[in-house]
């Protein structure tokens, strides 16, 4: 290898090493922010309206996309599921298939991904802009902790919204599946529900799904908050930060999903 190639390789490796260490540094930074957020949550308890306001912005305003998506996902599950099940003469298990897919996996995961895209980016952009226009600095100078006043309420708002949204997603998805399976395809309505009730276990399936959505809520909201807080105070910086929010949230959700599922299936 010539000198030029060696030095290019060296700088590529250095670059990579730098970026890797940078990621670790950012992870540490994010963990620190997480710690501060939890520690500063007293204000959110004392003034619940701050949290309620954030539940509105992250939860209520995400309802439309969540419910519409849930409906479509449920319908597709029913269609695809019926297509395969009827080959084995088990088309009456369609209720079980739709319910379990939604409650165990699709409900929490798809909700989290949609949440990251809609509410997560909104949070990142808002915090990033507040930082860029010195609003957070102004708050600090007025002896008000921006973490207690701005970050923590948004954290709790997201954490509370997510499981509610996931439950709604699963419920509406099942409804959508029902509407396709029973009136449209002609599966027996009674069998749909009774098979579902026999196979879906509250603790194993519903509770596990709920726990998953809570964990996703913490992860997605914290990532969104951190990216906004850490963003360079420029237009480009904020825009890159929102992209990072979606990417990192999605990776975190899918990774955590795998980890939690492997714990739960045992």
């Amino acid at each position, binding site marked *: 290898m010539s000198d030029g190639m060696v030095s290019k390789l060296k700088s590529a490796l250095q670059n990579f090493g730098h970026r890797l260490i940078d990621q670790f540094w950012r992870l540490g930074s994010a963990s620190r922010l997480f710690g501060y957020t939890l520690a500063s949550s007293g204000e959110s308890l004392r003034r619940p309206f701050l949290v309620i306001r954030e539940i509105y912005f992250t939860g209520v305003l995400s309802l439309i996309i969540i419910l519409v998506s849930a409906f479509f996902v449920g319908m597709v599950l029913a269609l695809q599921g019926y297509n395969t099940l009827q080959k084995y003469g088990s088309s009456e298990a369609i209720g079980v298939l739709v319910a379990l897919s939604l409650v165990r996996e699709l409900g929490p995961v798809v909700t989290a991904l949609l949440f990251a895209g809609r509410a997560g980016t909104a949070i990142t952009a808002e915090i990033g*802009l*507040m930082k860029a*226009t*010195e*609003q957070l*600095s*102004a708050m*600090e*100078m*007025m*002896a*008000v902790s921006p973490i207690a*006043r701005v970050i923590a309420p948004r954290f709790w708002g997201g954490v509370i919204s997510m499981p509610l949204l996931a439950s709604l997603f699963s419920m509406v998805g099942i409804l959508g599946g029902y509407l396709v399976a029973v009136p449209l395809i002609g599966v027996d309505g009674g069998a749909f529900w009774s098979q579902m009730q026999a196979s879906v276990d509250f603790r194993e399936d519903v509770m596990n799904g709920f726990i998953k959505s809570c964990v996703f809520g913490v992860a997605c909201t914290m990532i969104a908050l951190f990216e906004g807080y850490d963003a360079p105070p420029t237009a480009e910086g904020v825009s890159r930060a929102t992209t990072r929010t979606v990417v990192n949230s999605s990776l975190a959700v899918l990774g955590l999903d795998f980890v939690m599922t492997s714990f739960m299936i045992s």
Partner: protein
Amino acid sequence: MTDNIVEIDNLSFGYKGRLLHKGINMSFPRGKIVAIMGGSGSGKTTILRLIGGQLKPVKGEVRVGDKVVHEQGRNDLQKLRRKMGMLFQMGALFTDLSVYENVAFPMREHTSLPETMIRDLVMMKLNAVGLRGARDLMATELSGGMARRVALARAVALDPEIIMYDEPFAGLDPISMGVICNLIRNLNDALGATSLVVTHDVKEAFSFVDYVYFIADGVVVAEGTPAELRESTLPFVHQFVHGEVDGPVPFHYAAPDYRRDMLRGHDV
């Protein structure tokens, strides 16, 4: 107990090995308006942040009252900050609140006054800056000058002892500039406070401040009353005050010889 409300003692500050300030000494007497001037990037705004405790010095001390700012614990630092009001360059109003709510913010956070009293106080502060009629507008609906005046009302909401202004004249039309000058002077005298104005606007600043500090290359290169500085023969001060094109602050950014640079493209 000195007569200075803020004292900066041999302050050094910097990032990542590069020092921005290399031993700065300043004192700000009670009741006076002091300007901190210098070229862009000379670290003027950073001094305000050091006074407010948002940054920690590398060496030296910043004292407010008799307390060293960076040695204060969180609660004491918050108490210290309540004595200060800061006007940020672009206003930094909270964009999701109205004008009224912006000015009421510090009152609601730090006092337990009933809403009726808060209303009276907010009206008084807005009236002082001439924007009482704009109280229900959203912060995003204001023009630059108006936003800055509201931010000023918010900065003095709790009658601070120290009011800091970060480039208050930047980007304003002549009328607004005159208004702000007036407000700074009147508020300072009415509240008996001390005002620190960071700016590079010589004409406006010299028209109403009591004392000026000049910063360049990380140190205080000159200080005095506006009258004294107008007469100064120090090259930097002279260039700055009279707006000369070339002097200690060179016109040309460092570059190789002109002739050689131009010929380089055509050389054989």
